[in-house]
């Protein structure tokens, strides 16, 4: 009997083992499939990430603005109170649309639109460049889109941001201490209208009753906050609100600038020399041209030209 049982057990074990082997085989197959799929997915992701970087390149604005000279021009007397609570700044920002000029291409900007259109209409132009005679083809420039908008910034004369507030007191007590310290005129403060305090971030927004108190305080980088017997220096910085207006995507259209092609096999490699010859040729009315503003060509390597309003 026990031999039978032994046999049964043996068979069972073998069955189980066979099942396990089957399962392992299946799992292994799945694992290899999924691994392959994952590798493919990773490649696709990489491709899209690169593509995303490329396409957002020209629709994003990322500009460090150099110092612009500003001068007093006039004085106004607006009716509303709100215009006196902020120093307001506004400006216009507009994309310079890039155009990649390939080797052997040139851009020429005419003073008059009709001249540019005429040069395009004539299409083929025989131009003398040093000792060579080249045939240039004139075409319109196909431009990408850009964006333009206004930036409005209001720097408050009545509110200031405060940070680095020590976390020593419960919320409502700290609020009181802030109000007391910031109303001390001997320290540059003034009557406080409202205190917003965030214990977690250790920061606050203080609104004063009078316009101008904020400026005074902001002349210093920090301000004395009195807590019981101690004086802490808290950091102060301006409260600003920034927003965009009149945001618009536009499609660039070149009316006065023409694309010239046909310079690839030129012997001359000096771009300036070639530009001079092209300019001289297209200044002449008998060549279908007119007053020329700018000529730029790419001979040795491609360049990027920027189109602006």
């Amino acid at each position, binding site marked *: 009997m026990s031999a039978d049982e032994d046999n049964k057990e043996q068979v069972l074990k073998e069955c189980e083992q066979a099942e396990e082997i089957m399962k392992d085989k299946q799992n292994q197959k799945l694992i*290899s499939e999924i691994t392959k799929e994952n590798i493919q997915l990773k490649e696709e992701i990489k491709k899209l990430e690169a593509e995303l970087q490329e396409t957002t390149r020209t629709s994003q604005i990322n500009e460090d603005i150099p110092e612009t000279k500003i001068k007093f021009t006039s004085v106004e007397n607006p009716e509303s109170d709100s215009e006196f609570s902020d120093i307001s700044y506004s400006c216009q920002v507009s994309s310079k649309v890039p155009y990649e000029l390939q080797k052997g291409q040139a851009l020429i900007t005419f003073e008059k639109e009709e001249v540019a259109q005429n040069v395009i209409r004539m299409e083929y132009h025989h131009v003398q460049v040093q000792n060579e005679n080249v045939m240039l083809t004139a075409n319109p420039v196909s431009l990408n889109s850009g964006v333009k908008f206004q930036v409005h910034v209001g720097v408050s004369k009545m509110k200031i941001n405060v940070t680095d507030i020590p976390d020593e007191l419960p919320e409502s007590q700290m609020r009181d201490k802030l109000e007391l310290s910031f109303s001390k005129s001997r320290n540059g403060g003034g009557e406080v209208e409202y205190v917003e305090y965030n214990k977690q971030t250790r920061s606050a927004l203080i609104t004063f009753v009078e316009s101008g108190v904020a400026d005074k305080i902001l002349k210093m980088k920090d301000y004395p906050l009195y807590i019981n017997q101690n004086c802490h220096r808290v950091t102060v910085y301006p409260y600003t609100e920034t927003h965009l207006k009149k945001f618009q995507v536009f499609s660039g259209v070149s009316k006065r600038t023409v694309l010239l092609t046909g310079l690839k096999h030129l012997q001359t490699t000096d771009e300036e020399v070639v530009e001079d010859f092209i300019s001289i040729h297209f200044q002449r009315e008998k060549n279908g041209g007119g007053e020329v503003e700018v000529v730029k060509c790419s001979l040795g390597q491609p360049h990027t030209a920027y189109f602006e309003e």
Partner: protein
Amino acid sequence: MDSADVCPALKVHLLPTGSQTMSQALQALQEEQARLKMRLQELQRNLRDCPQDKVPFPVPESPLVFRGHFEEGKAMAKSVVSHVRICYPLPGGSALVTFDDPNVAKQVLQQKEHQINVEGFRLRVQVQPLELPMLTTIQVSSQMNDQRVLVSGFPAGLKLSEEELLDKLEIFFGKTKNGGGDVEMRELLQGGVMLGFTEDRVAQHLCQMGQFMVPLGKQQSCLRVSPYMSGKIQKAEVRPQPVPQSVLVLNIPDVLDGPELQDVLEIHFQKPTRGGGEVEAVTVVPPGQRGLAVFTSKSG
């Protein structure tokens, strides 16, 4: 079952024994795949939302010129900043004095307090340099806005004021019978009008319909509605910049009236003996009043 016939990357997962470890490995891989798929979808969505170099829907044209800005290398995002305008509130009892020569302003500022002689008495005032906030860095990204549309195709010579035009459009596109809905915002742009709706589907529906006959004054005009891309500020930094030619005069006592005060200040600050010089402009805000001094950029 040789581990060699599976991808080498799998060696770390594959153990020679134990189907338990194998199913764990399988699970880990399936989880990774789910994560990768989510990331892929996110990127595909971003790519769809992000504007391409040439946007796939109509946008107004803007004439551009090549003025010679030429650089080596690949195209980068570049922009022009112009029409800088700053409004600076002047408190009562203050004045803004602008000199021709910034060096004169510097000299005047060497003394914090000035005593101005007027007909036998002295006016004590304070002088301070002027600093104005200037935008030094701006980063803006564009994205499709599902609640907004651009209305374009306005006929030339339309005799409507901005307000009238915006009102008529808001009335027309505010009606559900026209395919519209509640208008939340409106803005006149160079190439058209932007309308923002409280519900997404209204904007989408209008874009699908595409063209509308809208009464604008005496006639009906055929206008086009297309998707709108809005901008979002990613970063904006403002730094104080000195105004070298101007000086703020503060705490002017209330003894003279406006025009007289203006003359007195001008005379005082022109005197070379006081460190003064040629004065370009004097703006006075008498006590009890307020004024807004406007500064603009020299070019643009």
